[in-house]
């Protein structure tokens, strides 16, 4: 009997957390839209928007998807996924504006062919 009561109390606690997270997500959604009206410089706007989105995403993952108290194997799977995900996003970032692998080869019309870098 004690276990059943404890279990019910536990779920009640969870439900209160869900409501709090819901309110936080709503507030952060308003914050995201409000910031966009400030017309910040692109780099700053991207940083702030992604920062807020990351906080929102973490709230969803930690509380709605119960990642705050998950088993080790799930964390291991997600850690591996995260590593590949970062690598995936790093690829285009590294090639941005004459990065490590892609170099601008188009020469002005006046220059002679074969004089690339």
């Amino acid at each position: 009997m004690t276990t059943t009561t404890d279990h019910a109390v536990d779920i009640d606690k969870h439900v209160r957390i869900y409501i709090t997270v819901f309110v936080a997500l709503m507030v952060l959604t308003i914050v995201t839209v409000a910031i966009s009206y400030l017309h910040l410089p692109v780099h700053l706007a991207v940083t702030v928007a992604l920062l807020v989105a990351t906080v929102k995403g973490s709230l969803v993952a930690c509380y709605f998807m119960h990642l705050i108290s998950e088993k080790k194997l799930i964390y291991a799977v997600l850690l591996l996924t995260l590593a590949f995900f970062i690598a995936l996003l790093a690829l285009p970032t590294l090639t941005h504006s004459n990065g490590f692998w892609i170099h601008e080869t188009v020469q002005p019309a006046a220059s002679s062919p074969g004089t690339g870098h």
Partner: protein
Amino acid sequence: MEIPYTVEVRRDTGLTNGKIGIWLFLASEVMLFGALFASYILIRTGAPSWPRGDTILNVPLATFNTIVLIASSVTMVMAWASLMRNRFGTFRIYMGATILLGLVFLIVKYFEYGAKFEHNLYPSTNNFLAIYFTLTGLHMLHVFGGMVVNAYFWGPGSKLWKTNPTWFTQRVEHSGLFWHFVDLVWIFLFPTLYLL
């Protein structure tokens, strides 16, 4: 032969087949959307100019849809919590609300797409619209897929509650994980496409 670890957890991992299965599937989904996000970055950084999303797209409608999807995530987790509290009637109400909110999201998106087509704005028009339609289109398919699974658990699939309530609760938890993931993707899509 009965498949082991459908309801009872494996002692070494502490997980059921369903739980590890859905997380592995979500890991593959992260890579799927990740590839498209990477494409977005590549196309955007390589473009001589890029429009701010709000000059082409409807921000108030998308904000409304963001609220709808977050609300549906809450009703989804409440549906699961209802089963944990042994309240099947409440589960049906919350699950029904989740499906309806998903439908609202798709209807709003239908009008958004319609408005673009009316103005002759298609995926072939420019790179911004191409990546916009690809990302939101794939996301919409996920919303629809989640709705189908949730509708199954709301309707015929709920028979399992009478024979094996633990298994049914776990199944709802797993479909919930997918639904929250779809919400999570939208949380990143919304600022990326509409506000930046």
